[in-house]
């Protein structure tokens, strides 16, 4: 039989069925599922331990993970179960929010906060228990390829002088995926598809967090903030509660950050010291500071994800989704890991690990909720580039409410008149509101 045109019998016997590069959520899920199905799998991680290079905002929509690990919520190192979502338009001197708390979000649990150093090392332990050979502290420098009549085929990976050969290489090496770039699956992305996330973990006593955020027990809150937190730069702020810390950060769209000639750290510091944000952090201490490049291109960024002998999964495949209200990556990583494992398992059974043989991955991914959601929200990135979202709408909302609440001894006017007046003073025009609302409804 042939794979990618190269007769497999002339290639050296592979060391493993599958090499997975990167022990993040996607890589661990793929490795775990494949080992469960009886394949020999090595999971290579460049950090000194799984998770030590990994950083996320912190909310994991956890249903997919619970399907793989039925005891996930009790066993895994999760922080809090999100029952409160706060959507906040933050201006310099005012703030308007929607506070959504719902007992149904706790039963069944839908979303949890996580800290990746802890979560990923737990996932790697599960992989080891399932029979995966976990290899931390090793940086993969490049992929090994052979040239066949039908083009390039990936046959393994190389680290320093060491080579590891496998039937299939899984590139789970994150948003910068040097592996996918090397083989030409990922061109350099335009700046409006990328954002930089800057985050701090702030330690606070458990009781303080629960009192400050109106939580009991292991309930958690997730704040999605837009406006002055990024000083008008496209993107937003987030604040998530952990057990004894808060994850707080900003995500800044790189095209806008560069165009406005602003400094990422100045914006983050401005957010931390904002008059309506600082009180949440009072008495705390930054215990860790980190950052992460974020893919925000949506479906446009998911290009080719299979080739002869290789698949690309998780963030390396551009699988992240910002819908304005929910920011997702880890749940898509889980879904792509499940789809990739199924596709690879079928390819190994059929002894055809060419692009065609591995095609089951792509089919399963786009048949899953993850692939469907990437399509559903295909217009979201474009909509979220609307400049007015990051400044004007928040101020307009606050001005309407100010007109209603500021009883300054002048006779009151109807709310409609107040709103109309606020509108006239705002750079937002009725036609903007209508077109943005229409685009928003269609995109989100």
């Amino acid at each position: 039989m042939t794979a990618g045109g190269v007769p497999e019998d002339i290639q050296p016997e592979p060391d493993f069925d599958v090499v997975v590069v990167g022990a993040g959520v996607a890589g661990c899920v793929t490795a775990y599922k494949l080992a469960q199905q009886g394949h020999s799998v090595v999971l290579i991680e460049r950090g000194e331990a799984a998770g030590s290079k990994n950083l996320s905002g912190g909310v994991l929509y956890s249903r997919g993970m619970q399907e793989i690990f039925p005891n996930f919520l009790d066993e895994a190192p999760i922080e809090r179960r999100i029952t409160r979502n706060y959507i906040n338009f933050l201006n310099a001197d005012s703030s308007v929010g929607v506070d959504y708390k719902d007992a149904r979000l706790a039963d069944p649990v839908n979303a949890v906060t996580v800290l990746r150093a802890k979560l990923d090392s737990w996932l790697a332990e599960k992989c080891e228990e399932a029979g995966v050979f976990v290899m931390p502290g090793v940086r993969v420098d490049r992929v090994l390829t052979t040239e066949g009549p039908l083009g390039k085929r990936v046959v393994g990976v190389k680290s320093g002088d060491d080579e590891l050969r496998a039937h299939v290489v899984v590139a789970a090496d994150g948003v910068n995926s040097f592996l996918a770039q090397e083989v030409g699956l990922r061109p350099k992305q335009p700046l409006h598809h990328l954002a930089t996330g800057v985050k701090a973990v702030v330690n606070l006593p458990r009781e303080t967090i629960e009192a400050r955020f109106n939580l009991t027990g292991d309930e958690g809150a997730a704040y999605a903030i837009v406006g002055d937190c990024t000083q008008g730069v496209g993107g937003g702020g987030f604040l998530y509660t952990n057990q004894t810390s808060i994850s707080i950060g900003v995500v800044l769209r790189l095209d806008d950050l560069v165009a406005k000639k602003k400094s990422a750290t100045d914006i983050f510091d401005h957010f931390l010291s904002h008059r309506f944000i600082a009180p949440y952090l009072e008495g705390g201490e930054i215990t860790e500071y980190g950052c992460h490049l974020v893919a925000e291109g949506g479906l446009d960024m998911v290009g080719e994800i299979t080739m002869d002998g290789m698949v690309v999964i998780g963030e390396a495949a551009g699988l992240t989704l910002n819908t304005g209200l929910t920011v997702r990556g880890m749940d898509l990583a889980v879904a792509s890991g499940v789809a990739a494992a199924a596709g690879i398992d079928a390819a190994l059974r059929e002894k055809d690990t060419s692009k065609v043989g591995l095609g089951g991955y792509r089919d399963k991914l786009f048949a899953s909720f993850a692939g469907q959601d990437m399509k559903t929200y295909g217009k979201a990135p474009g909509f979220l580039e609307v400049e007015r979202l990051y400044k004007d709408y928040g101020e307009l909302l606050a001005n309407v409410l100010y007109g209603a609440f500021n009883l300054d001894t002048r006779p009151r006017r109807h709310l409609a008149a107040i709103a109309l007046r606020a509108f006239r003073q705002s750079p937002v025009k009725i036609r903007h509101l209508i077109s943005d609302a229409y685009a928003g409804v269609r995109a989100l």
Partner: protein
Amino acid sequence: MKIPSIPERLARDRFELDEDENHIEVNQQVVKSSGCGRAIVQCCPAHVYAEEPDGTISVEYAACLECGTCLAVAAPGALKWHYPRGGFGISFREG
């Protein structure tokens, strides 16, 4: 909460410094001709890059948090940036 400076924040992170290998190289000529120096300096959340009085961009690779933002905003060829060797660099305890 008193907001610590970036160096103070980085001092609380755990790094395993690779004394032998610098994983970032700047091509000063490309930076100069493309004018991307300012974007590299301003976008890096760890202040790894600084503009020197002579206009060149200096690098403090030991502070790198390995996000890849610099590479994204740099002109093609301006930076040679790869991950540190296995086991070296930032090691998140929280993430």
